[in-house]
Structures are given as structure tokens and as C-alpha cells.
């Protein structure tokens, strides 16, 4: 078992592409760019539903398809 894992690709124009977005990473990306609409929704869901108790969950090594 290892820690939750997200893959990021930061493009030269500043866009950030994400795979395997975990609640913690959603919160971080939202904090970095509060205007990013797609991340607002995901960070909100993460905060309100699963994210606050995510530490209870065990994880394997991560990554999956977009």
C-alpha cells in the first residue's frame, strides 16, 4: 500500500491536466487557482463528501485512465 497519487501535466500556457485526481489534490489545485470552474466543483465535492475522511482509506499504488 502507498499514499494516494495524482498525475499532473503542466503545459507551457499554464493549463494543468490531471489524472487520478484525489480529494487532497483537488483542494490544492483549487487553492492555487480559485477561479478554475472545473476545480471548484470537484474541490467542493471532495470537501463535502469523501475528502474529510479520506485518511481512513487505504490505497494501492495509483493511476488509471483518463
Amino acid at each position: 500500500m502507498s499514499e494516494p497519487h495524482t498525475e499532473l501535466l503542466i503545459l507551457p500556457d499554464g493549463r494543468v491536466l490531471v489524472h487520478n485526481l484525489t480529494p487532497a489534490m483537488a483542494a490544492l489545485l483549487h487553492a492555487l487557482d480559485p477561479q478554475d470552474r472545473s476545480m471548484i466543483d470537484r474541490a467542493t465535492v471532495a470537501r463535502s463528501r469523501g475528502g474529510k475522511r479520506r485518511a481512513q482509506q487505504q490505497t494501492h499504488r495509483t493511476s488509471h485512465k483518463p
Partner: protein
Amino acid sequence: MTCLEPVGLKRGVENRAALACERAQTARGLLASCHFCAHHCGVDRLAGERGLCQAGAETHCFSAQLEVGEELELIPTFAVALGGCDLRCDFCITGASSWNPAAGAAFDARAMAAQAKRALAAGARTVTLLGGEPTIHLPAALEFVAEMPATAALVWKTNAYGSAEARALLEGMFNIWVVDFKFGNDGCAQRLARIPDYVRAARENLVWAGENSRLIVRHLLMPGHLECCWEPVAEWLAAELPGAKVSLRCGFWPAWHARRHPELSHTPSAEECAQAREIARGLSLSLIDE
């Protein structure tokens, strides 16, 4: 794995766990002549033979975690990724694991279900089985379903290359199917994923999924494939599955062996993404998560 036999219970989703247990045993027997996907290799996986997916009788899991990157109506989802796949997409973001059925740890359906149930109790909305391609691991997938409560919202994320035999075993097992409609023509499917007869198989799976579950159709927009792939996919969806929810994903990046194909060596341009959405709107597709 052993599980209780269903006794005197009506078959159907309300009896999902018992039915899944029964079908898991059937599926394991079918490994002796595997026809789970449209390759129809017919190999005896129980005897160590390997088909195009290279999977044997064992299942491995290379990822299991809470995620919020899927479609909004599914998240947070506890996503369980099984190693191995029956496609060979050169652009696969998880190629190393998806092409390798031995990637990750041996899959213990009961232990994984316990993790999934904890995630649901902690606020996860759904549990998603994906790969690689989960269809090649039907026995393990059904054993997992057998351990999950009837109230759990289960998501089957597939590449749409399953066979009729696989669909018969999956009927009533998953609440939601997220189906990747990857290519709009057989030429691109063969060249980029080494997969024959793709469009027919994908359409067959999509129609079935639309009739038998809640359906979300995904398409990952590939650079340079707007006209040859997205446009025909969108047109077919508009004609044949007009009410389906469509998730157009513009997050392609050149992973794994993508650079074998010059057009896949970069991300889609903002213009391509805008054009793709325009095509969808022009056809009145029900785009979600815009």
C-alpha cells in the same frame, strides 16, 4: 472465494449479491475457453494459455483510491483499477499497468470490498471498477460485486469491447456504465490500438448499456482526430442514443507510446476542443460537466 448460494430469492438487482456470486462461479468456469471480449480468443486461461490480453486466471489490482476526477455525478468515487487490457492503445495513460495483467497486487475481492464499503461510509458516492479493462476479469469483478451491499452504486468503466457472453453475466450487476467510445472508425482503432472490428463492437456495447443501465458515454478527444473520430462518434450518438449523457474529455496528453504517432505527440489545441464542443452542440448531444 466462496460465497453463500442464493436460496429462494427472486433474481434481479434486488438480489444482486447472490446473483453475482452465482455468476462469478459461472465466469470462472468460462475461463477454460475465454470469450469475454470481442477478440474471442477461446484460450484456456485456467490451463495457463494466454490470449491477446495476456491475462491468466488471476487478477491483479494496481490502483484503489478515492478520486474526484470522474464525472461530477459519480464523485467522489472509490476507483479500483485492475491490471491488463484487451486493447493496446499506444496513448494509454496507464500503459505500463494496463498492458500488464500482473501489475499491482493480487486482487482479493473480499478485502477490496471492505475498503470500498469503508469509502462509501466515509462519503464516497460510487464505487468504480476499471482497468486496464475489467471485462477480462469478470470472475473477480463479480466476486467483488457479491461482497457489496445492494445499496452501493456500482460503476462499470469499460472500453466497449466486451462480448455478448460478458454482457449476459454483467446484466443487472452495475448501476452505471461509463463507456469509452474511443475511435470513430476501424482504421484509427487498428492503427492506434491494434483492435479489429472496433466500431461494430463498441456500438453493440453502447446500445446494450443504454438499455440495461444508466449510461455515460465518454470520448477522449485526440489531437488530429476531430473529423475522423469525434465527429462520427458524435453523429452516431445523436442518431442512435439521442438521450445519452456524453462526457467529452479534452485532457489527452501524449503518454506511453503516443509519440509513435506524430499527431499524438501533443495535447489537443484549445481550438480543437472548442470545435469538438461545437459539433456536440450542433447535434444536440447531452454534454455533461461542461
